[in-house]
């Protein structure tokens, strides 16, 4: 869920930039280290990023009639680890802002935080936790579904913090309700789709 350019007051833009920065820096250090060992890492990360971008531009019909854009961040987190995925998500978000006007530049920090950090870290954590106890499909579904859901919750928190009217908790409730209607089915859809993708990849 992209927060649009201009939507957040500047103080919050700045805060989310600052909160995202350490993770991005850590992810970059990891990428530089990987690229030093394997020179093919950069082209491979680049094509994976391009895949994430194209995947997110495929629109998926959902039950409520709205459209979902599978993010591929969960998939990235399982493949490259969450910190590297955060950097990839940052690049993808810049491309989306410039090429599609999805999201924005002042809101980039906030979007990276919700979609590039919270989402992948949740998905990765859940996958790691459930992988041994549950079947792969269930584990992948939970990772993608909950990763998605946490992304939306984070976005709601970010919006409620920016517009605490009349208070933070009331505002959060309102944003969560708006999202529950539109985004919950999408999270289910994305979870299912990720399972289908994952199964296809394993079969091929």
């Amino acid at each position: 869920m992209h927060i649009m350019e201009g939507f957040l007051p500047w103080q919050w833009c700045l805060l989310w930039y600052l909160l995202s920065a350490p993770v991005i820096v850590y992810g970059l250090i990891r990428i530089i280290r990987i690229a030093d060992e394997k020179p093919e890492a950069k082209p491979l990360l680049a094509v994976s990023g391009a895949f994430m971008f194209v995947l997110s531009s495929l629109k998926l019909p959902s039950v409520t009639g709205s459209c979902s854009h599978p993010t591929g961040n969960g998939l990235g987190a399982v493949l490259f680890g969450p910190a590297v995925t955060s950097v990839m998500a940052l690049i993808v978000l810049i491309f989306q802002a410039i090429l599609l006007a999805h999201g924005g530049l002042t809101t980039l920090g906030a979007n990276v935080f919700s979609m590039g950090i919270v989402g992948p870290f949740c998905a990765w954590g859940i996958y790691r936790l459930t992988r041994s106890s549950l079947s792969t499909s269930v584990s992948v579904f939970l990772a993608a579904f909950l990763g998605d859901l946490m992304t939306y919750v984070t976005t709601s928190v970010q919006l409620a913090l920016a517009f605490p009217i009349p208070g933070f908790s009331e505002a959060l409730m309102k944003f969560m309700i708006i999202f529950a209607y539109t985004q919950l089915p999408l999270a289910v859809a994305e979870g299912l789709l990720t399972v289908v993708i994952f199964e296809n990849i394993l079969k091929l």
Partner: protein
Amino acid sequence: MRIMNISVDYYAHNNSLRESSTGFKMSLCIITMIISVISPTPLIPAIVAVLMTLTILFVADIPASYYLRFAAVPAGFGLLTLVLMTLFFGVNPAATIMGLRVYSDGLQTGLLVFSRIMGGFSCLAFLALTTPVNEIFHELGRLGVPPALTEIALLMYRSIFVFIEEASVMYHAQDTRLGYSGLRNSYRSLGLLAGNLFIRSWLRGETVYRSMESRCYTGSMPSLRKQSMGFRGMAMIILFDGLLVTGLLFTSGVWL
């Protein structure tokens, strides 16, 4: 459902400001954007939206029909925000229309956010429609962003277009065989498409790497170039954004 068409890239390569320095266009976009976002009143962002739109249409020569369609999505979203804010984000009820309570402070917040969205969007659109995204990453590299990030981004750029092309052909091939008739079929088809695209992306990664290796790639991408902003560009930004800042100071009450 269909595959996105990236027409922004086409205009980024074909507009009257294509040859202006990237640093100039980026500075103008970002400084103006910041002015728009820190403004406490809707007036300055509205002025920004108007000026930037005029620049896009009459200086960069982007066709109005295209720009209006491009701006329709954020404008629609902004209006929706305005309505939601007016209805749900206020404490001072002003009136009741058709059983819905309208808040005056909600309306104010809504107007401010709407105006900031349009101001910010017009700056973003200015950059997006005049500057190819690869030039932006080159500029970021010059500004000190680590090459690991800019190199991956630059390598990504071409792959995006190759994959979009491939994904749309694959989508058409599935559609021909009724792969998108009904929700169940659609999910299965899209899953198959994404899975295949993923495998392809790795194969492409391998061949691209081989072709890079064939041209003596050693793990880092050296790059040529080039032009800096120049005095004229800097002067224009100082003038343009200086006036906006002055307006900002007036409207925010600092000088009153």
